[in-house]
Every structure is written in structure tokens, then in C-alpha cells.
């Protein structure tokens, strides 16, 4: 069996999973209307407090020598290593890093930091993490758009099942940058208000920054925090369009259909991708209905965090594990009335419920989709 276990979330809502989970239970949002240094416009985005980050990181290392994403990743991974006691130098331990843009701020014209510009290369960024923690193996770096985080967890499961590793640390992260904001703005994909996944009045995404880390392990002793296992997980491509999802939800349907769900009534909820763009949410609703999962409640966590890109799949899996442990369905923030044509039931309030398992999904540019089934042992 492969277990999903110790973890950490660093976001605008806190520097630990507990802080984040409690914040959402109080309906706090990481997304806020913000004036950013590079624009006179107001953006609705989720940012991590820079002063808090500096205070925390300077107790470990000199902040001048590490980029923002490196600092966040080191703090997040360190929390998981400390909680789990996993030895990074062990032959059977691997780090997988999931990101879309890595140290993208190093490309900015006005970046005058003393940091080696070569750390724009994702392998070089990952090398900084390897050196810091003394990981035995070169980290595996995955950059597969918005499914990166969930796909990294699925890949971790495959590595463990093959016997190559016992413990895989999956870390996902991306920072908020002018690079991604300007790009999504050019697509007319941004919402100026907190986003409203699956709602009639949804107009687009909020971008957010976060780093999240989770231990995937075959060691039952290390599974104690959640007593949860990864049953199955797959990816698939729509083979339809590079920047728009399949209208018929083909790729996501293919993933969901393969999960090998034996008893639908065991599934407490689906943690959807739910970016709050008109096309994405519509596609997901159709795929869920086609997979005959209309009876399973659905939420999106993008209403709290915005779209955290390479972190999203890891962050949303972790909060779904909290949901499973606490037998509590998390409200899909921003949702009021159903605005998609596929038959789905969106979770509109926090709710105690007895359930065994959940499904996490993700979809992204390049036509990629992923889904995984997690269950109590």
C-alpha cells in the first residue's frame, strides 16, 4: 500500500497545514484585492506575507542567497522532514518537485539580486534544495502545467510501487509574478473579484502563490496522521486544444473512468480543479456526469487560494486529507447557484459526514488531466 502522510502548506493563510485548515474553516480567504509593485492596477490575488517569510527564513539561512521560491520550499520541506523523521540521505528517499515556472522572478529586468541567474533552470533550482537537505538522489522535476502537483503524487506512488523508493517527498510551488499575471490577463482569464468556481456568475481565475509538501510512503508507521492510502491515479490528454479544455471533458472522463471506484457511496466528495473560468468548470461538470459521479458532492478550493499552479494539486490533496480525517466536507467558497450544464452537486456549506474516500482531479493547458482516488486504510 502507498500512503499519503505528513505534510505542510505555506500560503497567504499560514505557514502550516493546521493554520491553513483552521483558516478555511473560518471562511478566511487568501485571495485579496491587492496593488502589486509592478502595476497601478488592482489585482485579486493570494500573496504570502513577505515579512513573515523573511523572519522565518532568516532563522535558518541568509535570505540574500535564496530566491523567494527557494526560501518557501526549504521551509515547507523542512517542516515535513521534521514531522516525519524521514532521512533525505537514505538510498530509498526521493524528492519530486512540481512547478510551472520555478524561479521565474530571476528573468525580471529589475531583479538585481546577487543570486546566480542560472537558477532560472528548474533543475538548478531543485539542486539548491538537494544541497540544502542533503538528498541522496537528484530531485525529479516535473513541469506539466496545472496538473503538475497531482501528477507528481501519482508518479510518487508509481516509484514506490516499483520498489525503487520507500519515501517520496512531493513538493509543489509557484510564486505570484508579473510574468504569469500578465499572461493570464492577456487571455482575459482573470477575475477582479474573489473567484466563484461552478457559479453562474463566475468570470475567471485569481492567481495565488503557495508551496505545499507531502510525504508519500510505503511505511505504515509513517501513515499515522491520516491513515490514508492512494488507491489509484492516472493522467490523460484531451488531444483537442492547447489552451482550451475538451467541450466533452474527454481527458478528465478517461481519468475518472479508470479510477476503479468499487463503491460510489464510499466517496465523500470530489475535490475538483474548479478554476472558475467558464470553460474549465463547464468541462469538469460534464466529465463528472459522464463518469456517473453526479451523486458525489464537489468542491473547489480555488475560491480560498486562487490558482496556485504547481502547488495546487498538492495543496488541495492535503486539505482533502484533512477533510477525510475530520469527516467534514469543505464548503466550495464563492459558489451560490449552479452555472454549469453537467449534473453536479456543489458543496455550499461545511458539513459533517461519514465517508471513506475522496477523488482529487486537475486539468491544465496542453490538454492534460489527472485524477486520483484516496481512501482510509
Amino acid at each position, binding site marked *: 500500500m502507498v500512503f499519503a502522510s505528513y505534510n505542510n502548506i505555506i500560503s497567504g493563510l499560514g505557514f502550516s497545514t493546521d493554520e491553513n485548515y483552521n483558516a478555511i474553516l473560518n471562511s478566511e480567504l487568501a485571495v485579496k484585492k491587492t496593488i502589486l509593485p509592478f502595476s497601478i492596477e488592482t489585482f485579486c490575488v493570494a500573496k504570502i506575507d513577505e515579512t513573515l517569510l523573511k523572519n522565518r527564513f532568516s532563522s535558518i539561512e541568509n535570505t540574500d542567497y535564496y530566491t523567494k521560491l527557494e526560501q518557501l520550499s526549504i521551509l515547507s520541506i523542512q517542516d515535513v522532514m521534521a514531522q516525519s523523521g524521514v532521512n533525505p540521505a537514505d538510498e530509498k528517499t526521493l524528492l519530486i518537485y512540481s512547478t*510551472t*515556472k*520555478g524561479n*521565474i522572478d530571476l*528573468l*525580471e*529586468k529589475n531583479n538585481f539580486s546577487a543570486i546566480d541567474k542560472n537558477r*532560472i*533552470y*528548474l*533543475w*538548478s533550482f531543485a*539542486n539548491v534544495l538537494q544541497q540544502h537537505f542533503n538528498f541522496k538522489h*537528484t530531485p*525529479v*522535476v*516535473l*513541469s*506539466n*502545467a496545472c*496538473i503538475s502537483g497531482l*501528477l507528481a503524487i501519482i*508518479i510518487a506512488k*508509481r*516509484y514506490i*510501487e*516499483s520498489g*525503487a523508493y520507500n519515501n517520496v517527498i512531493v513538493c509543489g510551488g509557484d510564486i505570484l509574478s*508579473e*510574468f504569469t499575471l*500578465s*499572461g*493570464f*490577463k*492577456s*487571455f482575459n482569464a482573470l477575475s477582479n473579484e474573489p473567484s466563484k468556481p461552478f457559479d453562474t456568475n463566475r468570470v475567471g481565475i485569481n492567481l495565488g502563490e503557495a508551496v505545499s509538501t507531502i510525504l508519500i510512503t510505503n511505511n505504515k508507521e509513517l501513515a499515522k496522521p491520516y491513515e490514508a492510502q492512494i488507491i489509484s491515479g*492516472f*493522467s*490523460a*490528454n*484531451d*488531444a*483537442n*486544444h*492547447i*489552451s482550451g479544455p475538451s467541450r466533452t471533458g*474527454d*481527458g478528465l472522463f*478517461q481519468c475518472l473512468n*479508470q479510477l476503479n471506484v468499487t463503491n460510489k457511496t464510499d466517496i465523500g466528495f470530489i475535490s475538483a480543479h474548479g478554476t472558475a473560468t467558464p470553460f474549465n468548470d463547464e468541462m469538469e461538470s460534464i466529465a463528472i456526469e459522464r463518469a456517473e459521479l453526479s451523486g458525489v458532492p464537489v468542491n473547489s478550493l480555488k475560491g480560498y487560494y486562487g490558482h496556485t499552479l504547481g502547488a495546487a494539486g498538492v495543496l488541495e490533496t492535503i486539505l482533502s486529507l484533512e477533510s477525510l480525517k475530520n469527516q467534514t466536507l469543505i464548503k466550495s467558497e464563492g459558489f451560490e447557484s449552479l452555472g454549469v450544464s453537467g449534473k453536479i452537486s456543489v458543496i455550499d456549506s461545511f458539513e459533517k459526514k461519514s465517508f471513506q474516500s475522496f477523488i482529487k482531479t486537475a486539468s*491544465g*493547458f*496542453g*490538454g*492534460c488531466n489527472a485524477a486520483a482516488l484516496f481512501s482510509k486504510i
Partner: protein
Amino acid sequence: MNNIISYAHIKNNSVSINGTPVFSSEKNATLPEFLSEAYKSMEISYPKFHKMDLQCKLGFLCTEFALQNTAFISENDLTKTAIVISNSASSLQTDKLHQHSIDDKTNYFPSPAVFVYTLPNISIGELAIRHKVTGENAFFVSKKFDAHLLVNYTELVLHDNASSAICGWVEVDDTAYEAFIFLVETKNNTNKNTIFKPLNQLVVTQIYNQT
């Protein structure tokens, strides 16, 4: 058994299929010039090609060459065909183009047609669309061509959820570029025109270093 049934290598303005040179441009041709000439040499009509960034064009052409004279697309269940690609620079070349378009506030022109290519896995999406391949995807970033990473993960995906795979390396970084694509099947050899080599790290290293 997992077997490599064909491979193509593009570097130094020349293309080889299964180790045999099949096309080349002048040594001093630029990458866009070379890609354009290589595309014309294939005598295919695929208008989407012209919208792609250089990396996607390179991956697209290398895959077309690897597929030439094979029945890979017609004989495999494409819902079970995985695409596993890697490189060193992710999408850095196009990242720089997009960054340049936002560097100057008085000359600000970010474009969705450029921005969409600032993700390395778009090259996987282009291959999926071209050949209607809907199986597993993964885009890895490693310092150099890493036969162990590619072979190891391809074996895992073939074990878990695929019966064939398009694998390789597609790199564009400033003026340096290289593409190496190999096709893998789990079924027995049915096509006499193709090579037939076991998928392992040694073989992949050998055929990569061959030309």
C-alpha cells in the same frame, strides 16, 4: 517486454532515423530556417505547425520522423499511448519572449499566442492533438539527457497504464537545440520495417550517443 521500434535524432541541422541520416540543412542555417526546411521536406500539410514555438516545432518534427515508415499510430490503442518528454531549459526560450513583452511599461504587449507556450508540456499537447493520442503525460526537467529517468519512468507508466509510449528529449536554449524521440511498444514485433531493441538504459544511451 518493452521494445523500442523506431527513433529519430535532430541536432546540428541534420536529422537521422534509426541512426541513418535522412535530411540536413546548411551548417549555418538558423534553427527557424532549419525547421522550416525540414518541415517542407516531409511534404505534410499541418497548418497548426506554423503557430507553434520553436520547441514545439522541433518536438513535432522529430516525432514525425520517428513515426515515418512505422505503423505505430495505426496499430496501437492511442488511449493507452503515453507521452514522456524531458529537457533542460523547460520553456525558457519562449519565457524570455513573454518577459521581453512586459519589460517596458511604455511598450507593453503580452500575447496569449506567446504565453501559452511558456509551459514545456505544451509540446506534449501538440503531439497529442496531431496524432489523437490521449494516454498518460509527463514532462520532466533534468540538467542533461537522462536515460535513467526516461527509461525508468516509461517502464513504470507502461506497467501501470500504457501499452505504448512516445519518449524523449526536446531542448531549445538560445542557439543550442536538440531533439531525440524514441517509440516504445509492449506488443510483439509486427512490422518488418522497424527496428526492435529492448527498452533499457544501456540501449537508450547507445542509440542517443550513436550519431
